[in-house]
């Protein structure tokens, strides 16, 4: 009886925490807004990283396929949006065309990457995927002068390293999200919801959908097959699992999520260039998955939140003024100190929590 009471108590405290977390997530953009809109942007980017980390987690964490070129899919989504909703080609498709299209094109790119690497594992797979990521970035860099063999004319597709500017924002029910929402008409004078805060809620919705989608996939027949593949490919085959198909599915689903995040990124940023999609970005997303806890969704989310927020917080903490206050002088250049602390933090986490900060539990 006492045990039952205890259990009820646990359930109740769990509920309280859950609700508190929910409320915090909902008011977070307004709290951040008090510090400045830059902080809201950091929150939004964090949500995109949550999506990216979840997508990569399907490939690396669940299916065990090391992918060092994941950012390529983010790029495909972002460029799909940028090219078809900007002044560049003077096309302005709506989001409900562009987001699914970007996600599907990214998934297609995922299959294109997946098909030739079916027989590769571990380090070899990592090298090829790394190359793939670089190829996509280099294509974007150089597709500003695409020539055809039968003519001297060149076509500017991606605008090269200068990137694409003047990208349309997300337009929901006739409301351009970037313009924000003026609710003073409702007698809440002086209270405005900024464009970035509106984006926050859209990104939050997509992030939650990604969590649900990835969770359900992971806990399904397909998800178990992925895990079996990760644990022992030969045994998985002996169980009748067509490892070729499920590998392609893993690459495809991972890429789909990345492509979706890419489209959202372009719609908020209004500007994309190949610079945003380098190898370092892929490694960063991989670090989120590994440091958080491979294959464990709460861990992956934690990893994404920590690693995307940490550099910004350190940026603030390592500020010249702060150093001035404590030491009287600026000892280390803030940018150097930031990278130093960040790297140190990563090393410490891996030393003391090799399974990640929040790995999947031993018992279910």
């Amino acid at each position, binding site marked *: 009886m006492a045990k039952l009471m205890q259990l009820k108590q646990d359930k109740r405290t769990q509920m309280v925490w859950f609700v508190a977390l929910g409320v915090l997530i909902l008011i977070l953009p307004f709290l951040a807004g008090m510090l400045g809109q830059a902080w809201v942007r950091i929150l939004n980017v964090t949500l995109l990283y949550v999506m990216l980390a979840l997508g990569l987690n399907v490939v690396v964490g669940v299916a065990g396929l090391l992918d060092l070129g994941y950012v390529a899919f983010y790029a495909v989504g972002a460029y799909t949006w940028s090219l078809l909703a900007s002044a560049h080609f003077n096309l302005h498709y709506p989001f409900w065309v562009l987001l699914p299209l970007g996600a599907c094109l990214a998934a297609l790119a995922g299959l294109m990457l997946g098909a030739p690497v079916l027989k590769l594992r571990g380090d070899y797979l990592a090298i090829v995927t790394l190359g793939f990521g670089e190829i996509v970035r280099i294509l974007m860099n150089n597709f500003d002068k695409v020539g055809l063999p039968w003519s001297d004319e060149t076509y500017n597709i991606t605008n090269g390293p200068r990137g694409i500017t003047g990208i349309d924002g997300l337009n929901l029910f006739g409301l351009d999200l970037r313009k924000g929402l003026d609710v003073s008409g409702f007698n809440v004078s002086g209270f405005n919801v900024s464009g970035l805060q509106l984006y926050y809620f859209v990104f939050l919705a997509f992030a939650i959908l990604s969590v649900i989608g990835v969770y359900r996939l992971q806990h*399904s027949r397909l998800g178990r097959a992925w895990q079996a593949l990760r644990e*022992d490919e*030969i045994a998985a085959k002996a169980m009748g699992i067509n490892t070729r198909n499920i590998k392609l599915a893993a690459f495809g689903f991972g890429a789909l999520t990345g492509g979706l995040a890419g489209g959202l990124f372009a719609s908020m940023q209004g500007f994309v260039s190949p610079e945003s999609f380098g190898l370092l970005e892929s490694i960063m997303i991989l670090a989120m998955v590994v440091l958080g806890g491979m294959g464990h969704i709460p861990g992956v989310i934690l990893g994404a939140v920590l690693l995307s927020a940490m550099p910004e917080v350190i940026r603030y903490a390592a500020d010249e003024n702060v150093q001035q206050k404590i030491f009287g002088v600026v000892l280390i250049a803030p940018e150097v100190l930031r990278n130093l602390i960040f790297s140190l933090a990563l090393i410490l986490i891996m030393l003391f929590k090799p399974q990640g900060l929040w790995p999947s539990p031993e018992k279910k």
Partner: protein
Amino acid sequence: MADMLFTAEGVTKRFGGVTALDNVSMQIPRGSIFGLIGPNGAGKTTFFNTLTGLYQVDEGKFLFDGKPLNVKAPHEVAQVGIARTFQNIRLFGEMTVLENVMVGRHVRTKAGAFGAIFRTPSARREEAEIEQRAHELLAYIDLSKRAGDKSRTLAYGEQRRLEIARALATDPKMVALDEPAAGMNATETVTLRTLIERIANDGTTVMLIEHDMRLVMNVCQHIVVLDYGKKIADGTPSQIQKDPAVIKAYLGGAHAEVGAKA
């Protein structure tokens, strides 16, 4: 002639200079427990690997359930109705005991990504069936208590039994067990023996590779002996124990005499 579930005809497999299987033929009656024995390196595991599609044969062929066994990829073998365990245990270590068995149901189920993401009624029903069947199989091998633990935390003997349950989950017509008693103590081996007999009684043909002669001689109705890739004997346990070629093969090798251990 009895109803044959499985037939191998003149199977040959070479690895460079080594002929691991040399013109091996055998027939396994439906519903029987069939032993495949021989000294270390005789080619027993290689035989399993060719029959389960891990390797392609160089010569010869297999017949299964009256049809030629034409497997191009290992995953097709489970579909046909052959499941196996591995000499060096190959469980899905980070998955739970229950999930390991659930993976075995993969080949008999069909829910895809759409069903998973949208939790369609048919996918949910199938998932419930998978889980229930997996629980039944865990009860069958007496491992229900550990259902929620990661499979790598199991004791050695338990891991071997779990591999058998996972194989049975594919609804096989024949299970091929590669040294299931290896590393087991005497009590565990007795439990294993009961399990093997129960599997055969329940209608699944068992093919058994084993070095534990007491187990093999007690449980098998029919035995084939391999040595250096060649079949040197084929018969009932009592015939095998008396066979001079078998005794010579075992005495010549590092192994104990067949008769003495049985």
